[in-house]
């Protein structure tokens, strides 16, 4: 986990330097395009975290694997925070480019907002069911149904008229020069590793909660008590 975090921070520093200093301004969007270096990684992770959550939910439901449900529960709050970031930085980009912070009729914005509500719904549902195995199952069903929305987010700019521009990474018509693209890919990788690091931290806690009665957990808690006792 410290490795994930350390590597992620290194890549972020590199990506920021490349994106904010080295990359030239866009010929259409000027320097405002630099928001891409946080907006796209956040948006990408908002979807990736959801897919991690949904796939873990499928595994948890089919094989009744507690660890999978713990993964789903750990991914949700992080995914929600990335979704919020995608929406907020999108707004900050939209204002100077389209002249509006928000457009209700826009399919990309609307589906991303629904994604945020799905994360909130998943977390609220879980926390309102006291029996953990029931909370796991109910949350998993919601997470799996919500995958429909992830598909809608992805294709929204192609299927409907949207203010939002299409993608420029894997697009043969609109290519990005390497000086712009490299920092973007670096930031996406950095955000992914960051997600991994925070998720593992949360997962450790989730597993401890679920195995609270197990001997190894009690020994761990004991060890921490002893350690603290020595320190103070």
């Amino acid at each position: 986990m410290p490795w994930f975090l350390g590597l992620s921070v290194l890549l972020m520093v590199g990506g920021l330097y490349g994106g904010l200093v080295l990359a030239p301004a866009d010929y259409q969007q000027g320097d405002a395009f630099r928001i891409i270096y946080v907006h796209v990684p956040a948006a990408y992770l908002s979807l990736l975290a959801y897919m991690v959550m949904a796939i873990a939910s499928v595994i948890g439901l089919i094989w009744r694997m507690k660890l999978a449900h713990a993964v789903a529960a750990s991914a949700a709050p992080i995914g929600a925070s990335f979704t919020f970031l995608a929406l907020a930085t999108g707004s900050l980009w939209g204002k100077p480019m389209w002249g509006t912070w928000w457009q209700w009729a826009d399919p990309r914005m609307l589906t991303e907002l629904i994604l945020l509500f799905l994360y909130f719904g998943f977390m609220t549902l879980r926390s309102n069911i006291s029996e953990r195995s029931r909370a796991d199952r109910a949350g998993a069903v919601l997470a799996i149904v919500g995958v429909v929305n992830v598909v809608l987010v992805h294709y929204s700019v192609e299927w409907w008229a949207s203010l939002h521009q299409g993608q420029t990474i894997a697009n043969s018509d609109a290519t990005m020069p390497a000086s712009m693209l490299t920092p973007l890919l670096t930031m996406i990788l950095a955000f992914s590793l960051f997600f991994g690091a925070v998720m593992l931290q949360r997962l450790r806690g989730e597993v401890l909660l679920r195995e609270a009665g197990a001997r190894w957990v009690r020994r761990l808690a004991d060890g921490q008590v002893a350690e603290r006792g020595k320190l103070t």
Partner: protein
Amino acid sequence: MMEWLAMGGYGFYVWASFALTFAVLALNLVLARARHQRIMNSLKASHADESAERPGGFREVTS
């Protein structure tokens, strides 16, 4: 330097985006660590009073 900070007139939007992003990333780390610590503390507490002996006797302290 000033020219760089101005971001061709888009300074507010660019810097607000980056500041918000890194604030939320930092918050992610802080909250995840705080939660882990809270879980460890409640495990210690429940172990100390042996209530963890009963199945389902464990409760997470949420404060």
